[in-house]
């Protein structure tokens, strides 16, 4: 197996030298092979060790996020003349309230890992963090307050209702049409 691979590489190598008079092409090819192996290993390793064993809440959230996106995309394809071949998913826009304590980097990492080898791979996950907003029951102030100081900024009252900051939803999907 290894021997045949080596002899194949050697054949390509001699071809390259003969045809292109340089070895750049071969280096590219080796890079592509290494990258492909890396993706395969990464998928097995990450999905097994991180997703199945250390399932932080970002991974749980990401799993349901991907399920929803897949079902929505299926719907879109059914209703229009777009399909997997003539489009690619460019961006997923989601909104998360700051009270949710979701770490965007972790969620993006989970997204990359869980979409490897799928139609969604390569699409960008755009996370919009919604700041904490309150309405004060004492003075009627409505607006943002700084994180970890849960009192009204105007009158210092603790009788407040949190109006924004607990969101967790998908806003839109951006699809690119390839002609």
């Amino acid at each position, binding site marked *: 197996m290894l021997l045949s691979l080596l002899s194949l590489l050697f054949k390509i190598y001699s071809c390259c030298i003969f045809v292109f008079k340089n070895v750049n092409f071969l280096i590219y090819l080796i890079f592509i092979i290494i990258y492909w192996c890396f993706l395969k290993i990464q998928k097995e390793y990450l999905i097994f060790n991180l997703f*199945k*064993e*250390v*399932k*932080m*809440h970002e991974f*749980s*959230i990401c799993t*349901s*996020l991907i*399920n*929803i996106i897949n079902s*929505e995309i299926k719907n*879109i394809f059914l209703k229009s003349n777009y399909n997997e071949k003539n489009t690619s998913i*460019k961006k997923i826009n*989601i909104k998360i309230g700051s*009270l*949710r*304590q979701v770490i965007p980097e972790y969620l993006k990492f989970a997204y990359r890992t869980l979409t490897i080898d799928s139609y969604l791979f390569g699409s960008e996950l755009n996370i919009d963090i919604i700041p904490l907003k309150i309405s004060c029951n004492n003075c009627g102030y409505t607006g943002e307050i700084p994180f*970890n*100081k*849960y*009192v009204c900024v105007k009158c210092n009252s*603790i*009788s*407040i209702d*949190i109006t924004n900051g*607990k969101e*967790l*939803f*998908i*806003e*839109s*999907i*951006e*699809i*690119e*049409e*390839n*002609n």
Partner: protein
Amino acid sequence: MLNNISIKIYRDILHENNSIARENKSLLKNKMIKMFNLIGSPGAGKTSLLEGLNKHLLNKKIRFAVLEGDVETTRDSERLDKLGIKVSQLLTGGSCHLEASLIHQALNDLDLSAIKLIFVENVGNMVCPAEFDLGEDAKIAVLSVTEGEDKPIKYPLLFHEAKAVIITKTDLLPHLKYDLDSTIGFIHEINSKIKIFQVSALMDRGILDFCEWIINY
């Protein structure tokens, strides 16, 4: 030529979990059972609190079950099982929280005819469990006096969602440099309507008040 299309969808990400949670809730409502979700850091005293509650609930002849969430091992269930409490062990195998689907399976396996109350002892963690609804009647935050006073503002979602806070291990207060008033202040900052109980499971202090609050909830 490339064409970009943006499609608005506005869908709740935890929709699947929330719909199973609603199923759990209606199942329990039909059977007239109340379910409470205990959330606190590892070592906060969640299991001890349940051990303490057992005596008072037995006196009042109220039968209850515990759904015990753990990452690994069944040690907590064994502790409760020794006292004759009905326990179902939920092993999450590395996951840091319980989800509604796991609770749904546990409820299906449990004999719901004889019990009035269910306590879910969540995995020791204050971030993730607050995120996932299980279909409970109320989330209850468990906080011990050996932790920092500022825990409530470090984990705001939990204290915002919870209907009651149990401050445990209060028998240790004379030996600690701990400002209980500032903790209570922080809790009220986040949630002014929350009920606070100060208990010591070891000395059996304050448990009865909490027990009555649960029964009348």
